[in-house]
């Protein structure tokens, strides 16, 4: 178990380093997906399956789609077909594919060695998380929304200047 967690942790780190060293945004996004998947594995191995599932659904799923969408919207100019050919060379997707293969092997291995649990207890369900988020921590949810608002306004503010200064 420990080796698996360490392996996933190092995959996360490796992916994160690759994210910040890529020059093309799409390549960075590919590595970011791998990073988030590896992080989800770490969560699952630490006994937080709900956090792992959220990580995959929200971060690796929804937010990545948003990233790709924004990148496609901003990169105007070049014709799409050439650009895609340029972006999707095997050299480019080879690295992320390799990392996710390792992750997949890890997943299959840990599934096959899973101890047979008869009483399927769930330590934390979506219902528990929801109840505590909208119960005692409802003010924190509101504060997080203000945090997102601050980020949104800041990003818009800086982006607007950039567009005007072109």
């Amino acid at each position: 178990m420990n080796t698996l967690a360490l392996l996933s942790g190092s995959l996360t780190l490796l992916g994160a380093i690759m994210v910040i060293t890529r020059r093309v945004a799409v390549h960075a996004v590919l590595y970011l997906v791998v990073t988030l998947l590896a992080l989800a594995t770490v969560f699952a191995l630490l006994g937080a399956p709900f956090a792992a599932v959220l990580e995959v659904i929200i971060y690796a799923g929804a937010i990545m789609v948003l990233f790709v969408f924004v990148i496609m919207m901003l990169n105007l100019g070049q014709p799409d077909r050439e650009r895609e050919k340029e972006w999707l060379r095997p050299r480019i997707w080879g690295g992320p594919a390799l990392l996710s293969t390792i992750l997949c092997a890890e997943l299959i291995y840990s599934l096959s060695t899973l101890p047979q649990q008869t009483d399927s207890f769930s330590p934390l369900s979506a219902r528990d998380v929801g109840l505590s988020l909208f119960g005692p921590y409802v003010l924190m949810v509101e504060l997080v929304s203000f945090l997102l608002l601050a980020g949104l306004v800041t990003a818009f503010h800086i982006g607007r200047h950039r567009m005007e200064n072109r």
Partner: protein
Amino acid sequence: MITHDLFLPLPLPILSLGTMLLLGSIAWHRSLTRSLAIGFFTLVLALGGLNYHLGSPQVEGASLFVHDRWGNYTALLILLSSLCILLMSWRDLHHDKTHPMDEYPLLLVLGTLGAITMVFSTNYLPFFLGVEIQALSLMGLVASRPYYFAQATEASMKYLILSGVSSAILLFGIGLAYATTGSLYFSPPPASPDNTIPAIATIMILVGVFFKLSAVPFHMWLPDVMEGSPPPVAAFMAVVSKIAIFSSLVRYFGTEETPVYLHGILFTVIILTILGGNILALRQTNLIRLLAYSSIAHVGYLLIAFFSPGQLRSEAITLYLAAYAASTLGIFAIICAFSWAENSNGSHIPKWKGLFYTRPFLATTLSLMLLSLAGIPPGIGFFAKFEVAATGVERQQTLLLATLVVGSIIGLYYYLYVIRTLMGAQNTPSLPVKEGHSPELTTLIVVLTLIVVVGGIFPARMIPQVLPSPTSPQNGLINDPVHEPENS
């Protein structure tokens, strides 16, 4: 329902509602004057709601927020400083008609919301969220400069990266603290000799806080970011965010003695901060950079008072925060009174030469503020520094007191250098003064000067008992917790 669980001081919902109102107003029609007015009235209303709270306080440890005198006092300072900063930027914002900057008051109110959240929180969650709300809105504010946009974006980027690093360290510390105690209550985890994790957690949280306070090993970002940002935003960074994080630091360790394993670290950081801030300020030719280094040194003096819990600590911290805020805001208001030409940086000190002959009022007030920061009697800063030294004497911190004296002497040199430049013979064309008169800036400068001078003459009036003293907890003092001459 859940409403009986809620407890929060009234300024928080007022600031949140003000933010929503601003958003709606901007979405409907962009108008800078209206946005600024809404921001202004939100801050004034929050000031009025300081003494009230929603819901009823819960048992110790269970609630997210607390409403006490210390929180009230620092929130008062923060709200008043934000009002001053809004007034300072009023004219600069109207100067540029082509880029209406409605986001500015919105982000200012949001940043104040973050600072107030930090001040009132007794739980890691609201504290961290407050830190992040403030950091993110400050990032937008730093980049809100119509000219010098490249420098402003660079400063904003630096701030983003360093604030991200410090938040990561802080969060790691919080995670370790939660792992040992299982509680998110805002106090250092109890350390034991056989378990070093609580000590590591406390040290990491302290390092994160020092990053935000820009104490010396972690100070590099502050002068660069302050130089790149517009002067009112630099004032926000030097005053509001420092008061907020310092208030949280005092709340975190409470009124008792700091843990023993931290003494060495605190000792080193205080000495480095005072000496480093003062020595680095010596060779500065840019007034804003000089103020940034001097604010680093002042954080060092404040940390002496923080490090010496005793009978005098509450008074010393209270007075010092007020003195520092009033003097620094005054200097920034005067900087804002000069025009910022498109191609020249108005904060270059040699350009202020001969100001006593061309603008005697501004030069006199600027000298008063600088003397107050240096700790010379006419200003409130003298009594503040005196009180800080008294706390050190009370706890026999000889080495720290020696550092305080050496730092003050070095500080005197560069503060007096600025005043000497102001008095210099006028042989160069002085700074262009903003055309027309700006009543709000004049009022602001007059009010702040009055606070600095009157506070220097009658300092006892400005000292409310806000922190219970450690040996005899007297919470039942009847005096008004927020009695301040600044209100008049």
